[in-house]
């Protein structure tokens, strides 16, 4: 809008009334009105002459990448006001977002579970009666012991949601239960990107690290503050201006400093609307874009030969008959976790000596390309094989596959390769949740290696949703006796439905099922076969419907004790003070664990208080970057203290990679049996143009991440529901084809199941897609639910990947009709 009276929806009073947002305020009312008044558990606060008011400092989420610390005002024992915590020395960290502010209501949500509940109807019927804690704990103990007796101790599976995994670490060891294992989300691209780069191990002049860089979650990027050094930012399937609200400034600052930002997304996202350019792409074809870009880089000779020779495995020799990398024959190395790893003793062709030598010997001058004979074996360099493999991926092919004009792909490739400092930022909501994500991450890794856009100011690759982390110090842990150990699961949680396993009792902490498992009908079938199902949660979520026993826990703002948590992220250590006392009969995660420990006679092995636990995490830390931080100093600094290295910008892989060779390894020998040692383009499982299933189910069903929710949290927050009620959105083309109008109820369906809710027309949605926000609770739609529709396909090769299979939630086809 150039002026207030632009022709597009000028700001007349009439257009104000028409514009979205104006009427939205009224929407949340229905849900809210009956809440506290009806229950009468809170007497409306009249104006007190002298209300008792105090301030408490608490970080918000334990796991969210925003890492906000909040200054909370409490009046007469109630949470009244939330602001960013000013205690951060660097103002860039004094943040909060719309979700944190909405906690003023959300803490008192109508969906809060007010007391322990026991199932009275059939499992899944969601009929419960309130019981006392004494009775609830008695039932819990009896049911667990029954399962132990019948099947053994390992028959119990503890499955936490992402948030709960950080706050209930003692539960599985107390029960000796299975827990952990592969999570199935947020590592689709990272599986290959991190494989190529290895665990980030810092640099000699950099004391701090980001401990999750290289673990498989794509958190390889430089920290967000470094974005300002980028000249060119290619954002692919990464709507970070919605999904990382409190980091939006870094992105906008980079743009103001002169970075060109190009956003590739099927939909006209908020990020797309703020980028210098939006490039729409066919869903699930990001790999074709990367392969096409690589072809351009190769054909135009835009690759960084020096970087490829010094920092990557491009010159490594491959035996073309066996497909194996040539090595010097060193035995495998055993790493800290006892796993066997290649020694990294790969061979290159030394042009000076005219023979194969180890890549890391002094004075070697490796050949980048070419074919050689080593001990009678025909060999080629990795770069040679990539060049050959790329012949299948012409610019025209890439254009046809992605729907992006060839000239645009060429322009993007040239800009990316020649800007001087380019970053590719990927997200967790795009191609990451399609079945071909690992191949996509692999294609991306090769493009990065060719151009050398990694480990430099403004140049990096990775998930910016999480990679913003910067440094994260290692806190110490509470030592548990050897008798108190959780068990690594025999199969991952999502496989419990399909693979042989001995699990007969399932304890969910938070709604891990709705967050992390697709194809809900199959999950229901499995849940109905169990002996005991327990839910530990704050709210009546989708999963609590299936529980036999529900144990209510507090929100992050409530605690029995003065201090309730600690975390170390984004260059800081954060402490969480109690903001308010526990509401209703809920117990803090800490206290619930202690009471369960008491039940099973192991209470003495655990911290006597939450404060003792927090202190132990600080005192047992060996991380020198937080040696200056004590419990007392954290309290004094309002719950916020910087790591000693915080003032420098964290960058990963500055002078070495974490792979066995310490170079970026692009040739995945372990994927040889699956034909993916180098990326071979592969369609998605369902969402591809020529799929015959399209005749029946022509539309992609996609759940995107939004500014209003964190995974499945906050669907019960009336202050957020002012702006967004659960619904799906479609383009006018697809709506017209089906005779639909905004506000209609629709039935979205496929062979797996259905969802009924309202539809709104939105031109920002790509034609051919039905778009909604991730993991809407089933109770908030008319019938069915989002996860009844979703695809849970897995490749055979998935188990070989760093973090195992990614659940392809968005690789889902559906049809829509008026309900």
């Amino acid at each position, binding site marked *: 809008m150039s002026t*207030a*009276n632009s022709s*597009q*929806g000028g*700001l*007349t*009073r009439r257009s*104000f009334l*028409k*514009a979205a*947002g*104006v009427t939205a*305020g*009224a929407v*949340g*009312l229905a849900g*809210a*009105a009956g*809440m*506290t008044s009806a229950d009468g558990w*809170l007497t*409306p606060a009249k*104006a007190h002459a002298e*209300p008792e008011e105090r301030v408490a400092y608490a970080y918000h989420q334990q796991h969210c990448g925003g890492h906000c610390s909040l200054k909370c005002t409490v*009046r007469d024992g*109630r949470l*009244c006001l*939330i602001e*960013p915590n000013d205690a951060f020395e660097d103002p860039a960290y004094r943040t*909060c977002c*719309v979700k944190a*502010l909405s906690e*003023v*209501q959300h803490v*008192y949500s109508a969906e809060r579970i007010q007391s322990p509940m026991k199932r009275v109807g059939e499992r899944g019927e969601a009929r419960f009666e309130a019981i006392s804690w004494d009775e609830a704990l008695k039932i819990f103990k009896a049911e667990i012991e029954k399962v132990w007796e019948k099947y053994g101790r390992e028959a119990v599976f503890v499955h936490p949601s992402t948030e709960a995994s950080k706050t209930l670490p003692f539960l599985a060891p107390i029960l000796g239960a299975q827990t952990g294992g592969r999570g199935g989300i947020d590592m689709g691209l990272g599986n290959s990107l991190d494989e190529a780069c290895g665990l980030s191990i810092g640099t000699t002049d950099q004391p701090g690290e980001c401990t999750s860089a290289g673990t498989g979650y794509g958190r390889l990027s430089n920290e967000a503050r470094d974005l300002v050094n980028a000249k060119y930012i290619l954002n692919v399937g990464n709507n970070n*201006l*919605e999904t990382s*609200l*409190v980091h*939006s*400034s870094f992105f*906008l600052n980079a743009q103001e400093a002169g970075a060109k930002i190009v956003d590739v997304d099927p939909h*006209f996202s*908020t990020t797309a*609307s703020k980028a210098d350019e*939006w490039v729409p792409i066919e869903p699930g074809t990001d790999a074709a874009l990367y392969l096409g870009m690589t072809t351009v880089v190769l054909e135009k000779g835009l690759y960084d030969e020096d970087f490829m020779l010094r920092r990557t495995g491009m010159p490594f020799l491959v035996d073309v008959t066996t497909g194996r990398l040539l090595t010097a024959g060193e035995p495998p190395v055993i790493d800290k976790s006892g796993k066997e790893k290649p020694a990294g003793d790969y061979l290159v062709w030394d042009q000076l000596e005219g023979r194969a030598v180890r890549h890391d010997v002094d004075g070697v001058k490796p050949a980048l390309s070419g074919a050689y004979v080593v001990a009678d074996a025909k060999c080629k360099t990795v770069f040679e094989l990539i060049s050959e493999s790329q012949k299948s991926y012409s610019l025209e092919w890439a254009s046809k596959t992605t729907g992006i004009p060839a000239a645009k792909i060429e322009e993007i490739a040239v800009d990316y390769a020649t800007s001087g400092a380019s970053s590719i930022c990927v997200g967790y909501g795009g191609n990451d949740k399609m079945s071909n994500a690992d191949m996509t991450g692999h294609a991306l890794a090769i493009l990065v290696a060719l151009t050398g856009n990694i480990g430099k100011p403004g140049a990096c690759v990775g998930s910016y949703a999480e990679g913003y982390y910067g440094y994260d110090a290692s806190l110490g842990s509470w030592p548990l006796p050897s008798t108190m150990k959780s068990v690594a699961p025999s199969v991952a949680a999502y496989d419990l439905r399909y693979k042989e396993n001995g699990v007969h009792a399932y304890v969910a902490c938070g709604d891990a099922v709705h967050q992390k498992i697709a194809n809900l009908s199959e999950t229901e079938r499995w849940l109905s076969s169990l002996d005991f199902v327990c839910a530990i949660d704050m709210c009546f979520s989708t999963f609590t419907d299936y529980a036999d026993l529900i144990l209510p826990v507090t929100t992050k703002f409530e605690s029995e004790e003065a201090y309730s948590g600690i975390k170390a992220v984004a260059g800081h250590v954060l402490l969480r003070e109690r903001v308010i006392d526990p509401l209703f009969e809920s117990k803090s995660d800490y206290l619930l664990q202690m009471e369960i420990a008491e039940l099973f006679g192991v209470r003495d092995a655990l911290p006597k208080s939450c404060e003792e636990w927090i202190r132990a995490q600080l005192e047992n830390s060996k991380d020198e970057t937080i040696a200056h931080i004590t419990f007392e100093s954290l309290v004094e600094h309002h719950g916020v203290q910087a790591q000693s290295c915080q003032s420098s910008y964290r960058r990963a892989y500055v002078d070495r990679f974490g792979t066995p060779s310490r170079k970026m390894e692009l040739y995945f020998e372990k994927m040889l049996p699956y034909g993916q040692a180098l990326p071979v383009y592969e369609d998605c499982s369902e969402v591809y143009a020529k799929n015959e299933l399209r005749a029946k189910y022509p539309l992609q069903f996609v759940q995107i991440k939004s*500014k209003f929710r964190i995974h499945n949290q906050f669907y019960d927050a*009336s*202050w957020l529901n*002012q*702006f*967004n009620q659960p619904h799906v959105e479609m*383009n006018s*083309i697809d709506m017209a084809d089906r005779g639909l109008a905004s506000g209609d109820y629709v039935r979205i369906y496929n062979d797996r199941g259905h969802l009924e809710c309202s539809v*709104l027309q*939105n*031109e*920002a*949605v*790509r034609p051919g897609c039905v778009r909604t926000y991730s993991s809407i609770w089933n109770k908030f739609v008319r019938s069915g639910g989002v996860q009844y529709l979703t695809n849970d396909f897995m490749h055979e090769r998935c188990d070989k990947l760093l973090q195992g299979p990614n659940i392809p939630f968005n690789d889902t086809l559906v049809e829509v009709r008026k309900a």
Partner: protein
Amino acid sequence: MTKYGMVINLHRCIGCHTCANACKMQNNVPMGMLWNRVITEGSDVIDGAVGTYPNLSRTYIPIACQHCENPACQRVCPTGATYKDDKGRVQIDYDKCIGCRMCMAACPYNARVFNWEDPVRDPDFNYGDAAVPVRGKGVMEKCTMCKERTDRGDEPMCVRCCPSEARTFGDLDDPNSEVSRLIREKSAYVLLPEQGTRPQVHYFN
């Protein structure tokens, strides 16, 4: 003299509604009402777009009371409840408001909200700043430019909480203030200038 005003950088506005809830929270605004809203211009749906795929554009516009120099609301108020205060803000004296809603009809920015019934709060207690007066049924209300905060020398809550740093608050009478500088250097404009209301909230792209 002091004349408080605000400048909003629309390119930096990411439509997150944090300002809307910051305002709601600070000022104890009941359910069904917002003093400060973020509209998606020309769209029937939040986060919609103008145009036909893929030729699309989107502009978010946060709108609250524009604290006009020549307020249309003030001119029509029969009781003097609406007034310009000594810091250039438009205020409502709730005790004088008779609920006639003339101001609501007169405001070209649709910035005012009315308590048709007893206010419903969720949660059902008075949240926000203790210094903010509680309004009842039959009373008009709107953005005060966080009078209680700005009187203490703090920024309005929407400015404090905006995650993308799109908002700047300050004294328009001070030529050296950040708001005055932005208005000069960014060719900032006001909404509906033809109304002659002379808003003290300025926007630039």
